[in-house]
């Protein structure tokens, strides 16, 4: 629950989602994510994996697909979540990617391994999305 005398962007976005996606469980996942970002220090929203998003929305009877769709909405339409990518190699070692590098990798469909320089062509198998919450925009006053 967000308690404030002024209307926050968080309230405005939640209202829009509730109107447009009513009856969709992904909308309830979105609400849980927004509430989590707003009510926690920004540092706790810097690395949100799908597992973390699912934990955050554990009170919603959501399937994995609903969490994927909710995250997609919050990052594509509202900038509530910033999308980032990590590269994870076959040994399980993780390399967070700069956004500009990830954009090029998505367009090209390949990358060179950061250490071995081996060409990775099945890139979608090695790219792992994660998100960063955008608390400042949620806490800003809504321009009604």
């Amino acid at each position: 629950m967000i308690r404030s005398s002024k209307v926050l962007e968080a309230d405005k976005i939640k209202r829009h989602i509730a109107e447009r996606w009513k009856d969709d469980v992904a909308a309830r996942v979105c609400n849980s994510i927004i509430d989590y970002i707003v009510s926690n220090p920004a540092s706790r929203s810097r690395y949100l994996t799908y597992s973390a998003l699912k934990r955050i929305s554990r009170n919603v009877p959501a399937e994995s697909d609903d969490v994927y769709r909710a995250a997609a909405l919050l990052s594509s339409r509202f900038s509530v979540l910033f999308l980032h990518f990590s590269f994870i190699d076959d040994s399980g070692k993780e390399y967070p990617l700069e956004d500009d590098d990830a954009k090029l990798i998505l367009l090209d469909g390949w990358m060179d391994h950061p250490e071995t320089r081996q060409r990775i062509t099945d890139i979608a198998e090695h790219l792992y999305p994660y998100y960063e919450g955008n608390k400042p925009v949620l806490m800003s006053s809504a321009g009604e």
Partner: protein
Amino acid sequence: MPSLADIKRAGTTVRIACELQELKFRDAPYAEFVALISKAISYSVSSIVSQKNVLQNLNEDQLTAFVISPLKAMMFDIAHERNIGGKCDISIVGYSEYLWLAEAKIFSSYGKLLGGYRQLLRRYATGLPNQDRGAMLIYMYRSGKAKDRMAKWAKYLLQSEQDVTVAWESSRIEFTSSQDHSGSGLPFIANHIPVILYHVPTDTIKPPKRIG
């Protein structure tokens, strides 16, 4: 933790939602946003046509609700009758002020289709860059071949509007029109898409009697 490939294997709805967020991440141009909408609309239209036996006698608003539903699940910000210069049948708002509009009509006459097209172009379309693409969805309940009807509609449009051009898609059943917006002077491009709902099964008619 699922990889990007794992997520895209989850199904069409999730895959398109995922592609939509990738477009925003790459700050992809309007043309890519429109191409993704076309893919989603094709999926939705195919889904509707495959259920035509249970979609008989619906009105335009009810049919449009069926078109919109899958795109909403793909997390497009899609609305029925959002106010954009009037109540536009279908509108999709995207990042960077991207806008895509569609008018939907049950086919009864070419004059009625022309009315819908003119509403789309002259009432709803802003004519601004990144807001200059849309569609005419034509619900076809009546008997008659959709290919022939679309050819007649293209001809009627060319005769009725002075500066419009049309280009056929490879399927020869859909076409794209381009016409300058009266406000901005920029071309507004619309895909004209038939939604074939004619359903009178003839497979249960008795075969002719055996001769001889």
